[in-house]
């Protein structure tokens, strides 16, 4: 795959290996384990956008929260610029927290209605006191941030209610950028916005990345948006990444039946892009409290056979030299490889139902 070789190896900002997280939930008198993350491995390069795709309940948000250190993982390692953030304490931890920031989905709920836009954007300075000392430095930084996200300096005095949804999301982005982070976790950043405004915010995120070199983890259920803004994509199902690769590879030649079904099920504006035959999956996401044995997707998969129930599939995918490589590598040059966890991967775009009618 040419896309793998032409890219110069870039430095990773974030490397995650075999991350697991369970929650204890009370169910029917007893308590049970809900495995929200079950061995997640991924990496994000400097200035790169990794897309995270999956249906509700697949563990996307738990992953985001764990990377923000809002949850403690049960198992696995997180390396941020080579450092384990969970080993940090005190001042070091505070210094680390500045480097990973988050933009939330709902621009109406995530901004305090009693604060002005300027106060909201400047609030991080109160926690991270060493970064911008003195009111002059802070107001200078505030103006830089407002300018970065396309707001006027007079907007700093307005409250969130005076802004439209798109402008509010700009405030949320400015707040996330206030401390000059290395990684932004964007949790459905445009799904609450109207289409005409959505494009404005996506363009802004793109400009900011080129200007600041910040990395993004872009969580979204909108596949057309993911295709447009991400370099690589990871598809999650019931707490596992079931397929990963360079965005174009995954979209044009999906290997996992679930990925193919997602692509096939998403409505297309252009009739010429519509599949000849739409894959409509039966059923819904099984309860993560009681995930299926073997392959977790088998209960909804049209290709499932006996082995899918008895053995969890290894990751496999076509390697650059045409051979089949095994294992889901997150680190090293192979991290750009296109891999899926499936006993019977999709062999062609035609099988995935992605060849247009005609």
């Amino acid at each position, binding site marked *: 795959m040419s896309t793998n070789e032409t890219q110069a190896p870039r430095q990773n900002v974030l490397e995650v290996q075999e991350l697991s997280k369970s929650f204890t939930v009370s169910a029917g008198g007893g308590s049970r384990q809900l495995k929200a993350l079950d061995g997640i491995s991924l990496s994000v390069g400097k200035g790169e956008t990794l897309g995270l795709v999956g*249906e509700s309940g697949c563990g996307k948000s738990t992953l985001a929260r764990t990377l923000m250190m809002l949850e403690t993982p049960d198992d696995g390692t997180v390396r941020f610029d080579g450092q384990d953030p969970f080993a940090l304490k005190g001042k070091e931890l505070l210094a680390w927290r500045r480097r990973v920031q988050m933009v939330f989905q709902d621009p109406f709920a995530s901004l305090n209605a009693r604060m002005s836009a300027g106060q909201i954007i400047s609030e991080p300075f109160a926690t991270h006191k060493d970064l911008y000392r003195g009111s002059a430095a802070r107001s200078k930084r505030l103006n830089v941030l407002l300018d970065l996200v396309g707001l006027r300096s007079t907007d700093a005095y307005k409250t969130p209610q005076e802004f439209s949804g798109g402008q509010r999301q700009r405030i949320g982005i400015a707040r996330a950028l206030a401390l000059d982070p290395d990684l932004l976790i964007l949790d459905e950043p445009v799904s609450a916005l*109207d289409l*005409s405004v959505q494009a404005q915010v996506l363009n802004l995120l793109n400009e900011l990345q080129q200007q600041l070199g910040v990395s993004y983890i872009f969580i979204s259920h909108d596949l*057309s948006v993911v295709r447009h803004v991400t370099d690589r994509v990871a598809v999650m199902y019931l707490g596992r990444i079931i397929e990963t690769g360079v965005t174009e590879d995954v979209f044009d030649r999906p290997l996992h039946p679930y990925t193919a079904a997602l692509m096939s099920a998403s409505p297309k504006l*252009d009739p010429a*892009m519509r599949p000849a035959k739409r894959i409509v999956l039966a059923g819904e996401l099984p309860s993560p409290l009681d995930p299926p044995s073997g392959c977790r997707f088998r209960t909804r998969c049209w290709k499932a056979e006996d082995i899918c129930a008895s053995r969890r599939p290894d990751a496999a995918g076509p390697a650059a030299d045409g051979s089949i490589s095994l294992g889901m590598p997150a680190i090293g040059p192979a991290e750009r490889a296109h891999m899926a966890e499936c006993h019977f991967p999709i062999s062609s775009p035609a099988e995935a139902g992605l060849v247009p*009618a005609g």
Partner: protein
Amino acid sequence: MMEVLDPQTREAATAEAVLAVTGLDVDIRTPTGTVRVVGNVSFTAYQGQTLALLGESGCGKSMTAKAIAGLLDPVASVAGGTVRLEGRDLNAMTPRQRREVAGPGLGIVFQDALTALNPVYTVGSQLGEAFRIHRGMNKKQARAQAIELMRRVGIPEPEVRVSAYPHQFSGGMRQRILIAMAVALGPRLLIADEPTTALDVTVQAQIMALLRRLREEEDMAVVLITHDLAVVAEEADDVCIMYAGNVVESGPVATVFSSPTHPYTKGLLESVPTHARRGDDLSSIPGSPPELKSIPSGCVYQDRCPMAAAICRQERPELRPTGANQFSACHFSESLRAGATATPAADSVASPETPSTLQEETR
């Protein structure tokens, strides 16, 4: 010479008009005065077809649906126009007459299935309510009907699930229950207000397939309210595009999407990330929709329109024919039609022989 048909009389020969909305106005009373949230909206929905009301949040599409169904909040009221269901004007009826006609004749599905269902009653009793009220059935008969309905909309083990409460169902199953409730009495018109917005994409595909099947089985007219252009492109026959309470363009989906004759339609279509490549700027519409209390006189879209001229500030354009069954409220629709080439080739709907070049271009 093409004869342009009035939307009301169109296709009268082939499909029967089930719902005809003419000049509908809806006002909301606020502490600072009355605000017109729906202005002069007209459209017709035909038997066995889907009409989409497309627009962004606050454009008045849901308010239009509520006005048709007679479910407006107390602060809102219909200020003018007619809503005819199979020829009978619902707005001219007494509440009692309206219940008798629209109760069985008009079904509505809301976006949020959890808030639309009552949490303290079983789904069976909520599904059976329509049969008890309108068909005079007893509890046992109504329950049997509820089970049958649940089977029709694809809920597994309906005999058991009929006694379950709404919170015991998943989002997709709740939406199926709402749909079952809406089609219980065999309505002529089904209004679906963002029926899949809260659902995951694989479940969305299931629900859309269910709505399509029911539309065919019942030969109903469907009014689909959505903000999703791709859903409209796949599901609807006709589309009405609304902006700031007004219809700005309407017509057959294939025509409107392939050659839009309103700058807002054009802007929307270009905002969808389709063939754009990673890193390319998406074209976007500058600004955001106007506040309903400060809709400009003249054209509602003037503040964001790249073509706005002096006349757009002075005079509100009327919906005028711009093509076969296509209507646009723009002073410059003719020049748009002349230059309309930029958007996806929706005409390939008609020709299955389209070469698959698009697939190649994306590689």
